[in-house]
C-alpha cells in the first residue's frame, strides 16, 4: 500500500488512486468508501473504473455500482436528448458547450461515469436577449426569481438566471462569459470562440482542450464549492494530460490567468498525479474533501469556509460583496 494514502481513513481516495487495492478491502472499508463516493458524486466513476473486473468485487458492491451505472447511462441519454432540443432553440446564436456537456460530446477521458447537475452553454453576449426569448418559446423557464436575484444575475454575473425545462426538469445555465462581470479577472471571451471547433456528430461548438482545462480550473476557484472538488480536480488532471503543459500555461498567460490555473493544476496533480500526497496535507486540499462525516473536523470546516470566502471575493469586489452577503443572510433568516 502506498504510504501516502491511509486506506482506513481514506478508502475512496485509495480506490481512485490504486484500484487494485479493492481486493483487500474489509466490509467496513467498503461501506465507508461507497458512502464517501456517493457524497463526492464519484459512484459512477468507481463503477466505470471496475467495469471489466466487477465480478471480483463483493456482491453488494457490484449491486451498488450497477445502480450507479444505470443513473449515469440515464443522465447521458437525457443530456443527449436535451442537446438536440437546445440546438433548435439556440442554433443560430453559435452556442458553445461547457463543462460536463462538452466533455460528453467531445468524449474526453474523464467522462466515463461522470455525473453532472446541469448543462452549461456559452453564447456571445450580443445574442443573449434573443437567445433567452428563444429558450422561453422552447419550454425553458427562468422566471420566478426575486427582483434582487434578477439584478444579481443580469448586472453582475456571467450567466442568466438558471433555466429549467418544463417537462424534463433539466437545468440549463446560459453563459456569456466564464467569469462574472464583477470579477477581478477579465479577458476577451472571443478568443475562446476563435479556437473552438465542432466535434463529429454534434452541431455545438466545443472549446479547445487547453480552454476546457482553464475553464475547469477557474470555475472551481470562483464557484467556492469544494464538496465536489475531487470530481473537478480529476476532470482537470485527465484533461490536462491531453495537452502540452507549456502550451496550456501559455494560453492561461494570454488570458491573464497564469497564477490561478497553475495553482489548481498543482492541486490536481497532488491528488491524482505521479507523486500523490495526503488529501489533507494543505488548507487548499482540505477544502476539496467530500462532505462526508469521515472527513469532518474544525480544520476541514475552516478550509471550506476560507475557500468559499476567497471565491466570493473573486466574484465581486468587497463593496459589492458585503451588501450582497448580508442580503442573502437576511433572506435565509427570514425563510427560517
Amino acid at each position: 500500500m502506498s504510504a501516502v494514502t491511509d486506506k482506513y481513513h481514506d478508502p475512496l481516495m485509495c480506490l481512485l488512486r490504486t484500484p487494485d487495492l479493492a481486493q483487500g478491502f474489509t466490509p467496513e472499508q467498503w461501506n465507508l468508501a461507497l458512502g464517501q463516493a456517493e457524497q463526492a458524486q464519484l459512484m459512477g466513476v468507481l463503477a466505470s473504473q471496475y467495469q471489466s473486473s466487477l465480478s471480483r468485487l463483493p456482491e453488494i458492491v457490484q449491486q451498488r455500482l450497477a445502480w450507479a451505472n444505470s443513473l449515469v447511462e440515464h443522465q447521458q441519454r437525457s443530456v443527449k436528448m436535451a442537446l438536440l432540443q437546445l440546438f433548435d432553440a439556440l442554433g443560430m446564436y453559435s452556442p458553445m458547450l461547457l463543462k460536463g456537456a462538452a466533455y460528453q460530446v467531445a468524449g474526453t477521458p474523464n467522462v466515463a461515469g461522470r455525473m453532472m447537475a446541469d448543462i452549461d452553454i456559452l453564447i456571445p453576449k450580443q445574442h443573449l436577449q434573443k437567445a433567452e426569448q428563444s429558450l422561453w418559446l422552447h419550454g425553458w423557464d427562468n422566471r420566478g426569481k426575486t427582483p434582487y436575484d434578477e439584478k444579481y444575475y443580469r448586472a453582475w454575473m456571467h450567466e442568466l438566471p438558471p433555466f429549467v425545462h418544463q417537462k424534463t426538469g433539466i437545468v440549463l445555465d446560459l453563459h456569456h462569459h466564464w467569469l462574472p462581470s464583477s470579477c477581478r479577472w477579465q479577458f476577451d471571451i472571443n478568443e475562446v470562440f476563435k479556437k473552438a471547433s465542432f466535434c463529429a456528430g454534434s452541431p455545438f461548438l466545443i472549446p479547445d482542450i487547453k480552454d476546457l482545462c482553464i475553464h475547469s480550473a477557474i470555475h472551481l476557484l470562483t464557484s467556492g464549492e469544494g464538496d465536489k472538488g475531487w470530481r473537478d480536480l480529476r476532470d482537470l488532471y485527465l484533461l490536462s494530460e491531453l495537452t502540452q503543459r507549456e502550451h496550456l500555461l501559455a494560453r492561461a498567460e494570454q488570458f491573464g490567468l497564469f497564477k490561478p490555473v497553475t495553482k489548481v493544476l498543482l492541486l490536481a496533480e497532488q491528488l491524482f498525479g505521479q507523486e500523490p500526497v495526503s488529501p489533507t496535507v494543505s488548507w487548499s486540499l482540505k477544502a476539496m474533501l467530500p462532505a462526508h462525516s469521515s472527513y469532518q473536523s474544525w480544520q476541514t470546516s475552516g478550509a471550506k469556509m476560507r475557500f468559499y470566502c476567497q471565491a466570493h471575493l473573486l466574484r465581486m469586489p468587497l463593496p459589492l460583496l458585503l451588501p450582497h452577503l448580508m442580503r442573502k443572510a437576511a433572506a435565509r433568516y427570514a425563510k427560517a
Partner: protein
Amino acid sequence: MLKLAAYPEQVRAALKQQGLFLSLPPFVIQVRCSSNALADYFTRIYANHEFFPQPQVASFNIELKHERGLRRWLKPQIRFYQNEHAPFYSMPESHAPILWEWGLNYCIAAKYHACLTIHAAVVAKNGEALVIPAPPGSGKSTLCALLCSHGWQLLSDEFALIDLSSQQVQALPRPISLKNQSIDVLREYVEKTQSHGRFSAEFLGTSKGRVALYSVPSEQLAQNQQSYPIKRVLFPRYCQGLHCEVTPISPAQCLMQLADNSFNFAVLGQAAFICLAEVVASSHAYSVDYGNFNALLAQLDTLP
C-alpha cells in the same frame, strides 16, 4: 445468519453500536438506531427475518438518530438518514418503526435500478401474480391485506419489482402499512378468523393519520425473491356504498398507467418500455370500483 426473534439482546446492542446487518434479499441493510423503539419492533414484527452477526457490505446505510438540543429531553424526535442524507422531517421517537418502513421504501424507490420498480401491491395465487398499482389512499394496502387472508400470497404491499428480461415480478414481503379505518377492518378480521397475523403498536398523528404495521402470517407469504409471471393488473378505487364494478382496460392504457406509477421507468429507458410492453401483452387489465370486498373477491375468481 441468525433469526431476529431468537437474539433480541444482540439485535438491541447491534442497533446501538456498529449497526444491525439485516438480510432482506436482494439487499443487505445496515441499520443503526439510538432508540429502543426499533429493536422491539424488529424482534416482534421482523421475527422470522435474519441478520448477519458480522459486518457486511450494505446496500443501504440507514441511521435513525435523535435530534439534538433541548427537545432530546422534553419531546424526543428522531430523524432518518441514508448515508448521512436526511430526506424527511423528524418524527416523535416512538414512531421509529414507521420511519424505518417509509425510509426503506424511499431507499428502494430512489436507488434500486436492477428491476423496473412500480408503486403497487402484489399478491399471487396458483403461481400467478396479480399487480395492484394505485396512488396512496385508494385502498391498495387494505385490499392487499384482505386478499392475503383469502388464499392469496403476499409478494409486496409497496413494490412490484419486475425483472427486465423475464418480465416476472419478484417477492419482497414486508409488513403491510395500514392506515386509519383499515386497521380496524383488518383487526376485526384477524380476531374473527384467529389468524396468526400480528399488529405493531398504533402510531397516532402521522402525516398519513393513524398507522399500524401488519405482519402477515408466514403461510400467507410468498418466498422471498421467488418470481411469478404477471397475469392480471388491477387498478382499484374504493367507493363506499358501491358493490363492485369491473371494467376491462386496453393494454396500451395499462402500459401508460404502469409507467405513471413507476419509480424508475425513465432511468431504465427503452429496456423498461420493452419490458412493460411484454407485461401488458401477456396479462389482462381491469379498473375496479368497489365498496364490497366479498363481491370483488368473487369477481376476481371469475376474471381471466
